[in-house]
Each structure stands twice: as C-alpha cells, then as structure tokens.
C-alpha cells in the first residue's frame, strides 16, 4: 500500500488543481466554456479513478478509519489534521462526484453565463466536500464544514436568480450560524490535542459543557437540513435556481448535515438531550408531511423534486437518530443512489424545461417528443420511488423496518409522506409522458447521444448497486 500513502490528500487536491486550470484559462475565447467544463469533467473522472483505486484497499467490515493520513499543524497546542476513509464516506464521495459530473454533462451544451465561474466554484465545492467526508478529526472536520460555504454562496448568488437581497442574506446567515455553532462546540471539546470524531461521545465533560457542546453540534448540522425552522433558506433558494449544476450543489448541502449527525453519533449523545431528540423527530415528521402535501397541490416538476429530496433527507435523518447503529451502512448505500438519481432527474428536468421555454409549449406530454429523455426519466423516477432498480429498494426497506421497530406510529407517518412523494413523482411522470390533448407539431430536441450514453452508464451503475451495492470494493 506504499503508493496509496497520500491518496486521500490527492483526492482533495485534484479538484483544486482543476479549479486552478479553469481559472487560468483565457477569458473571451469562443471555446472557453467548453474548456472549463472539459477540465472539470476530466478532474472529476480522474478523482473517481483515484477513489476506485482507494476502494480496492478498503475493508468493508472495519469500522475504523482506513488509509489514514496525519499532518501536524501546530505543536503547542498540539493540533493535527487527520484524514481517513471508511466505506460510508467512500460511498458518499463517489455519489457526489457522479452527481457533479452529471451536472456538468447536463449543462455542457447550454449557453449559461459566467460558465468559468460556475465550473471553478463547483470544483472548489467538490474539493471541500470531499475533504469533509474524509476528515477524521474534529479540527479538519470543522475546516471543511466551514470552507464549503464560500463556493456554495457564490454559486447560489451567481446562478440563483435570487432577486431579493433578504433571501440571500438569510441563506448566508443560516449557514454561517451553523458554522459558528460548530466552531463553538469544537472550542469546548478541544482539549489541547486532536480528537477523532468517532471518539467524541467518549469525552467526559461537566453538565453545562455537555449541553452547550452537544446542543451546538446538533443545531449546527440541523441548520443544513430542511426541517423547520431551518427550511426557509433552502426552499427560497431552490425556487429560484434554474441552473442544474447549481441546483445539485445546493441540494447536496443537506447531505453534509445528515452526514455530520451520523458521524457524531447521536446514539451516544448525553441523556439530557434525549427529550430534545424526540421534539426533533416530531418536527421532522411534520415538515415531511407538510412539504409532501404542498407538492401534491403543486404541479411544477421542480418543486416536486425538491419536496422528494426534502422528504428523503428527513427520512435518512430519522433513520440516523434511531437508537441503533446497525442501519448506518444501509443509510449510506441508500444515500449514494439517492444523490445520483436526484441529480439525473434534475438534469433531465432542466433539459425539457429549457425545451419548453424555447418552443413555448406546455410541459404536458413533452416527453412524448423525446424518447431518449423519456426512457431515462422514467427509469429514474421508478428508481426514486423505490422500485428494485437501485440500492434504494432494499436499503430504504431496511431503514423503514428499523423505524417501524422503534416507533410504529412515527413510521406510519413517515411511510405516508414517502408514499405521497412517490405518488407526486408518478403523477408528474404520467403528466409529462402522456398529453391530455393533441400536441402541436414542434421540433423538441432530445438529449444528445453523448448525454444519453452517459445516462445509460449511470442506469447500469444503479442496477449494479441493486444487485451488489459494493461491487467495486475489495
């Protein structure tokens, strides 16, 4: 394993290198935006290759950090950056890479403004979120948690079409607040040496420090998940983002909240917080139901996609809050497919939405003009609702079983919200595929052959994940 010594550092640095090349490319050249996207895609593919290489040496059954790398930052106080990976973070990193690659493929042919900035900030975000998933100590965890805020903010502001200053301010402040809360918690937990984030729960603190630290940790991660009262920023932003890559990036942010809560293991949270966890569960379920019901009355596919994402993020959050850690890997496997499916749906929705606007037609039956898009879209919708087409099927079933075992009433509400979301998506699919009246003769472009080929590969990967989610490991 000698040649894998700095592989995790390399995985973080490759997107940064890509960003550097994108920034250095000449402005104003007619192929600038294609160059930017091609560099970005190449960086992502290189990183996927590195990830596959790393995965060959990962022990699926081990719960410890693997391929550990340690960098000394300060001697007094002693602070080290520790990077490590396990199967859970590997899955998430891979899915985020594929999601962003999907986004780049989806917008490559478009005439988006400021595409160099888009590509550069996306690469910066990818680097930071990769670092977040491989951070093994408290310090580096916080650094990446905070550092991904800047590229996200820039992407949302440039491509969010957010007209109201207050919406943007709220978006920034909510996320900054979460960063500062986590910083406060780390200041309390930090005891003159680096702390492995898997050992946080073993620290002995006095009563007030414990409440302060754990309360701040929970609030910091919850600020990124769209549950009340933190939902406002993401729903405001999502209603305005039209660029699929920016949409994908913005909607990967809640994943960081769920991941953070899983890593800090709410299983070991102090007893004094347990009543608040119950309140959180109730609020989460109410949020799920509310958003699913609103989506039921809103025919816009983008809003229904957003509601689907929200409901499932909360579903995974509730799974993570169960008093067992046996389903954490199931959550990871399900999340990885979920991210890929949602990204694909967003790219396809962007395609036919742009076609609709170009030809000034309704979305009803638009998929009937575009067989390739229709095929892929149908597959993704069916996979999204839990059909046996991806690892979502079995793993969601396992998570739901765990929820039923823990609290059947709560599980019933969750199941209802999930079913409602699934119905919403199926209804949208039906509406998009089958026109209610005779369609006008318009030349609506299908997705390109290259995009279709890429989508087929993704579909194949999803099918393989259904058969064996960890086929690439070992």
């Amino acid at each position, binding site marked *: 394993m000698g040649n894998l010594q700095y592989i995790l550092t390399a995985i973080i640095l490759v997107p940064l290198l890509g960003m550097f090349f994108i920034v250095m490319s000449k402005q104003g050249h007619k192929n600038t935006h294609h160059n930017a996207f091609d560099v970005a895609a190449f960086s992502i593919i290189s990183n996927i290759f590195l990830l596959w290489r790393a995965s060959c040496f990962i022990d699926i059954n081990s719960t410890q950090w693997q391929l550990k790398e340690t960098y000394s*930052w*300060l*001697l*007094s*106080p002693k602070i080290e950056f520790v990077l490590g990976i396990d199967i859970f973070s590997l899955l998430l990193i891979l899915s985020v890479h594929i999601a962003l690659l999907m986004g780049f493929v989806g917008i490559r042919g478009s005439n988006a403004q400021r595409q160099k900035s888009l590509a550069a900030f996306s690469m910066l975000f990818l680097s930071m979120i990769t670092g977040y998933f491989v951070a093994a100590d408290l310090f580096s965890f*916080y*650094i990446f948690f*905070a*550092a991904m*805020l*800047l590229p996200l903010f*820039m992407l949302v*502001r*440039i491509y969010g079409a957010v007209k109201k*200053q207050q919406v*943007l*301010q709220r978006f*920034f*402040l909510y996320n*900054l*607040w979460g*960063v*500062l*809360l986590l*910083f*406060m918690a780390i*200041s*309390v937990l*930090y005891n003159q040496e680096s702390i492995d984030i898997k050992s946080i729960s073993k620290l002995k603190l006095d009563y*007030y*420090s414990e409440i*302060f630290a754990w309360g701040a940790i929970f609030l910091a991660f919850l600020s990124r998940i769209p549950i009340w009262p933190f939902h406002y920023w993401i729903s405001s932003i999502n209603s305005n983002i039209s660029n699929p890559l920016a949409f994908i990036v913005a909607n990967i942010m809640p994943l960081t909240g769920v991941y953070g809560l899983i890593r800090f293991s709410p299983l070991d949270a102090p007893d004094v917080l347990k009543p608040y966890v119950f309140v959180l569960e109730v609020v989460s379920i109410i949020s799920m139901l509310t958003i699913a019901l609103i989506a039921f009355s809103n025919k816009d596919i983008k809003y229904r996609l957003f509601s689907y994402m929200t409901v499932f993020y909360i579903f995974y959050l509730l799974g993570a809050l169960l008093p067992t850690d046996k389903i954490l890997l199931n959550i990871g496997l399900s999340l990885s497919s979920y991210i890929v499916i949602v990204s694909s749906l967003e790219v396809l929705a962007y395609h036919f939405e742009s076609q609709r606007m170009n030809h000034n037609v309704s979305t009803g039956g638009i998929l009937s003009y575009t067989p390739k898009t229709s095929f892929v879209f149908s597959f993704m919708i069916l996979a999204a609702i839990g059909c046996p087409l991806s690892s979502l099927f079995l793993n969601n079933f396992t998570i739901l079983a765990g929820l039923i075992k823990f609290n059947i009433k709560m599980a019933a509400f969750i199941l209802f919200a999930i079913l409602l979301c699934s119905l919403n998506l199926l209804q949208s699919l039906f509406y998009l595929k089958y026109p209610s009246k005779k369609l006008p003769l318009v030349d609506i472009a299908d997705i390109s052959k290259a995009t279709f080929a890429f989508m087929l590969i993704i579909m194949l990967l999803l099918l393989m994940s259904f058969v064996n989610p960890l086929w690439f490991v070992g």
Partner: protein
Amino acid sequence: MLAYIALLPEFVLMSGVLLLLVSRLFKPNLAPKFVYGVCKLSLILSAFLVVVLYNRSIDGYFISNSYAVLFKIIVYLLSIGWSYLSLKHFYVKEKAAFRFYTLMLLEVFSLSLIISSNNIALLTFGLSLSFVFGYLMLWLDRRMNYIYLATILFFVLLLACSSYTIYHCFGVLDYSSLKDLVELNGNNPYLAFSFMAIMLSLFFAIGLAPLHLCFIDSIEEADLPSAGYINLVPLFAYFPVFVTLVSGPFAGFYVWFSALGVGFGVISVLFGAFGANSTESLRKIFAYAGLYYMGIIMICLNNISASSLLCSFIYLFTYVISMFGIYASFYGLKHKGEYLDSLSQIKSLASERPFLASSILIFIISLIGLPPLFGFVGQFFLFDHIADIEAYKTMVLAMLSLLILSCGYLKVLSSIYFEGANNKFDSVDRVIYFALSLNIFIILSLAISPQYLISYLIKILAGVL
C-alpha cells in the same frame, strides 16, 4: 552616556524629519519620490538599528528587550509598506507628500517612544505626541474638526496630569518603582486616578467604544493614506503598551479595572457589529468592524494570563494583516482619479476588476474567521481560550455579534459581485497588485503553517509575564 545609544533609532527618525524640513526650506515643491525616499531610508535605517541595539536600555526610562523590538519592527515594517502604497496616491493626486511623510515619521517616532518607554513621563509624552501627530495627519485636506481637536487636547491634558500626579505625590516615574508603589498603596486615590487616566487614554487610542466616535468619522473624512495608516499601524504600539502596563506596574489595579475593560469591550463589540450595518461608506464599515475586533480582544483580556495574552496577540495579528489588505484594495478602487468609498460606487467591480474583487473577498473571509485563511487561526485561539475559562456567555455574544457584522460584510460582497451597474474603474497599478498578492500569500502561508509565528510569540510573551 553610552546608554543613550539606545535612542539612536529615534534619533535617525528625527534626522529624517529634519532633513525633510531643511529640504522644504530650500525647495518648497519637493517631489513625492524624494520625500518618500527620505522617509523610507529613515525607517529602514531605524529598523536596522532597533535590531542591532537590541537589549540596550536607559535604566528607568527606556527599554529595548525582545518584546519592544518585536513591536517596533512591526510598526516600522507596516509603515514602510504603507508609505510605499501611498506614494501612488501622491503621484496621481499631485498633493504635497511632504506633510504626510513628515507626520508619518513623527508618528513612528512617538510610537517608538511609547513601545520602549519604561517611565510614565516618557509614556505620557509619547502618547500625547502620538495623539497630536495622528490628529494632524487626519486633519489633512479637510476642515478642522473642533470636537476631535478638543478630545485630543483633553486626553493630552489628562495624560500630563496623571504623570504629574504620580511624580508630585510619590516622586517616582519608572515602572519598577511604580509596581512596588502600587503593591504597597493599592488604595491610594491619586495612583488610581493616574491609572484610570492612562487607561482611558489608551482606550481612546485603540478606538474602543464609547470613545470611538471621533475616530470613525475622521477615518471616513480623511484622505486614504492617513486614514489607512492611523487605522492600522498605531495599534501595534498601543496594545503592547496596554499589556505592559496591566501586567507590570499597574497589575494590582487591573484586578478591579478589568470589569470596566470588559464593559468597554462588550460595548465595542455591539457598536461595531451594528454600526457596520448602518452605513454605506466602505471605510466606515471596516472602521466599525475594527471596533468589534478590539472589543473582543478587550473581553479576552479579562484576566491577564499567558493564554489570554497569546490569543489576543494572535487575533490582533490576524486582524491587522487582513485589514491591511482591505486598505490596500481601497487604493485600487478609483474612478477618474477619485477614490471610491460608497457601496453604490463599487457595483460590478467583480466583472471589471476580478483580481481586486477576489482579493477583497479573501480578506473579508479572513476577517470573518472562516477557514482555511489566517483569520481562522486567530479566531480559533481566541475562542479556545474563552472555552478554557468556560465563559460561554461571552462566546455566544461574540458569535452573535460576528453574525451581525457578517451582514455588513455581505453588503460589500453583494455590491462587488452581484449588483449590476455600469460603473467604470480606473486601471489598477501594478504596485497595488503586488501588495495584494503578497498579503494573500502571507494569509495563506500563515494559515498553512502558523507554528513559527506562534512559537516566536510564546517566547516573546514569556518575558512579559
């Protein structure tokens, strides 16, 4: 007699002033480059002598230990850097560089006296000179501000009274004798009065609320070289002096005074955070931000310990380095030769001058304390200390205020990046780009490897305690 060689650096500075005055006599319109050259030479030579004459002292008056040398060198380096950046202002504006550079040399002279003073009379004299020269510097190119002048005179008189009171009542002025005096006469009202007078003067000098009002308005109205200099450089003289006094001769008084200091700190934090959101002027926004940072440092110094000193100094470093970058960026914000100061004037800067806009973004991120920039290092040390002493209410106050302050920064970033307008900007000089690049390099490299700076500071501060 040989001991007076310790004053050689200060002598060189005064020689530079004298040379400029004599040159002015013979030639009224001195070229900016010549004036800058004399200033630069004086500063460099003086800095060299400070290092060479390390550990030379005049007993009871003047000290030149590692602590004093460190901060004198920082003052000199910042002055050299700022004078270099300001030269372009005088080329373009065709203003007399003579007054600015002469007053800068005089200000550095007074700051140098303050840092090295081991005597209350010398300290009060140096502080008074610093106030007067600072006022004269800010007074350039605008109508005289009577309130500010009256405030300066008030503090000068207060300082004079304090040192006279000590000398008249006790006959001693040097720090070591004063320390013994305070230990023996802890309840003496004259000593307490003198101590309060000096502390209030230092708080005014640092710019803590509620003594900040004249300072903020003056920063906005003065020309850029003066405003930037007064906002950045003197802090590295006033703050170490404050630490020397409260950990040395007046340590006994600081036990009860610290609560007042914390009160000033809290007010500064709140004024700074809300004030930054109340104005459209760039300089005022960052001047108010400075209030916040100074307030946080003052709260941190509630109790003087190695940990609190270390974290406050690191925080001060991170603040000044980032703010230096901000003010350097201001030199690049010009339209038809006029410096831009309002938020509406800098709209669409990112599309016209992307490097300048990115620099401002980096410096603001560093000021907020987000990783992976150097500002995070300072913030980490500070809040780690606050967590160590379990001052959770302070932590919450600091964080909430930072959140409010960030709204002010967000206004700046929104104007630069996201608000479209047809603003045009003059081309930015290469010197400015070089200064910005160097600053960014320092911020990034200190963030990656802060160990050397911190171990050096630990060694220096060990001497203070």
